[in-house]
Structure formats: C-alpha cells, structure tokens
C-alpha cells in the first residue's frame, strides 16, 4: 500500500515516497526511506514487495557506483533508466522475478530534468509526472489538471501538497506522510512538505 510520486519541473525533479513501512495490517516503521541515491544527479524511488525492493534498489545502487568507478564518469539518467529496465525485464522471465516498481529522477547529463517510470515488468516510460501504487489513481488526474510544463520547483512543491491533501481526504490508508527529495543543479537534497 506504499506510494511513490514524481514531478519533473523546469529546474529539477521532485520525488516523494510514503513514510510508512507496512506489513499486513501493521505499520512497522513510520519514517521509512524508499529512495536510493545513485550518483550526484540521480535518485531512485521504489515501491513493491518488501525485501525485493531494498534488495533490488541496493543492487542498482551498487552497480551504478561500480560503473562510476570503472568508467570515471557517472552514467547519465537515460542510461540508468535503460539499465534498470533491462534488469527488471530480464528478472521477469526468471524463476523469481523482482516485484519492484521504480521512479528514476535526475538531471540527464547533469542538465536536463528527467523522470522515468519503470514497473516491475520492465515497462519504461519517461514522463513529466508519474506515480506508483494506488495513489496513482488519485494523483494522476490532479496532475492532468494542474501540471504546466513551465513550472518551477516551488510550483512543483505546491502541486505535491495538493496531492497530499487529496490523498489525506480520499485515500483510506494511512501512510504517515511523504518523504520528499529534490534533484536540481546543486545535487540531491531532502525537503519538507510543511
């Protein structure tokens, strides 16, 4: 019942993930971090079966760090998205596929804001805004109505607040709010949704 939301704006990308770590009807942890920093300008957010998620995210993180060491250059966002897709698509036809959905947020080549939606099968689409989990049904229509291509990070945060308000009102499951991370020219930082 976890959620991940991403918004690509003019000067960066925002990712928000639900804070609750849930098992069955119990919240085990109220401050879970469902993101991994891959390199200076790229961050990954995940939802899915617990165990698979962290295992897979750590694997991707490790391999991206390995790539940077071997090549002396960070892999760009498009390359990372393709790599993750490739791993998931390969995994899908294995004995036990990873059940992990990914949002990849970054600045492609350290410059162009980039957001990619990759599901557990390896279906990849690059989008201006995206969401995983049941939350997607609520927030996608909000984005369709209010998203503008010329938005700034500040506008993006406002839009994210609208998403939270909508989910708080209509979504029956408590997910202990959002953890918000922002990628911009300066790098990756945590942010708060007041």
């Amino acid at each position: 019942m976890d959620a991940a939301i991403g918004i690509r704006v003019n000067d960066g990308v925002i990712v928000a993930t639900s804070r609750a770590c849930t098992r069955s009807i119990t919240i085990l942890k109220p401050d879970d971090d469902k993101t991994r920093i891959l390199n200076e300008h790229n961050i990954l957010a995940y939802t899915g079966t617990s165990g698979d998620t962290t295992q897979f995210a750590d694997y991707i993180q490790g391999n991206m760090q390995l790539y940077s060491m071997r090549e002396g250059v960070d892999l760009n966002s498009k390359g990372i998205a393709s790599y993750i897709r490739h791993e998931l698509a390969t995994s899908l036809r294995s004995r036990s596929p990873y059940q992990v959905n990914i949002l990849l947020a970054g600045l492609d080549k350290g410059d162009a804001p980039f957001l990619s939606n990759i599901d557990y099968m390896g279906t990849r689409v690059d989008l201006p805004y995206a969401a995983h989990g049941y939350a997607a049904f609520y927030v996608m229509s909000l984005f369709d109505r209010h998203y503008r291509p010329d938005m700034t990070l500040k506008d993006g945060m406002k839009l994210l607040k609208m998403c939270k308000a909508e989910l708080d009102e209509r979504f029956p499951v408590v997910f202990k709010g959002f953890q918000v991370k922002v990628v911009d020219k300066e790098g990756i930082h945590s942010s708060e949704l007041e």
Partner: protein
Amino acid sequence: MSQDPSTYNGGSAVAMVGKDCVAIASDLRLGQQSLGLSNDFEKIFHYGHVFLGLTGLATDVMSVHEDLRKKTNLYKMKEQREIEPKSFANLISSSLYKRRFGPWFVGPIVAGLNSHSGKPFICGFDYIGCIDFAKDFIVAGTASEQLFGMCESLYEPNLEPEDLFETISQALLNAVDRDALSGWGAVVYVITKDKVVKRFLKTRQD
C-alpha cells in the same frame, strides 16, 4: 481483473500496401489496464528501410525491439547491406518461435519496400512467429477487430501515397475510438521509394 498480458498495456497498429508504396501506423497510448500512463509511446520502429509495428505487452515490445536492433545491426555489419523486408520477416519469425515455450507477448507487423525491386511487402505474425503474408493490409493490437472492419470497408488496391495516408489514418482513428485501450494520439509513416513521411495525428483524448 484480466490477466491477459497482450491486453494489459493496450495499443494497436496497422499496415497497408499502396501503389509502389506502403504505410504503417500505430496509436500512442500506453496504460496499465484502465489507467493511462503515456500518450507518447510509439509502437513503430525501423531497421534500415524496413518498418516494424509492435503491439502487445509493453515490456516485451521494448525487449523485442532491442533484440531485433541488435540482430539487424550485426547483420548490417556482416553483410555490408541493410536487411530486406522478407528476410526481416523470417528473422522475426524464427526469433519468436525460438521462445515458443516462454513467449514474448507481442503482435508484430512488418512493412517495407524491397530496395532492389521496389516491391511493397507487408506481413503480420502471431506471438509465436507464424507469418501471415497479406497483399492488402495487416492489423494488430487490442483494436485489431475494429481495424479489420475499418480496413475491409475503406481499403482499395493501388492507392497513391497521399490517398493511402488518408485511408490508413481514417482506418486507425475510427478503430481506436471504439477501443478503450487504444488511442491517445497516433503516428503514421508513408514509405515510398525515395522518401519516408512521418506524421502525427490528433485523436480524441478519452
């Protein structure tokens, strides 16, 4: 909830033969069942001068495209020429059949002109590689039934490129409007001996 992989993401494609030309077109939607995700998901690819429409499970659409890109690139370097439509059709057929017992859930269609004779070629496949040679039109995807209907009534042989464009566009547009899983924009390629014209179509957004 439907568990059929071939209708999970939605999407349709169609190809037609004209006079010394061929056309191939697809919609642009990608969804997860009823939820639309992208209106920018093109299902037409090309390998040299041969065009391929790929419908079905989106992850397999991408995987099959990547596999064929690899094979045609190696073919190009070894043979020192681009692959021809008929050879490409057989390459697809054997690639899909090789995975007979763990198939890609795709519905491919091929369109192209032979680079020597200029002869138009189209064909379609089932998801395990059985080739369906046709001399008029080929359909694929979640709106394939609607496309059959539209093509049967609109198609006529030996159309000039401009008329073929109109025919294939109307066939696709009106077919996807009767399918909830297809639509959200469309792309049409008209292929003649010396040029390829790509056009995007506006469609209903529901």
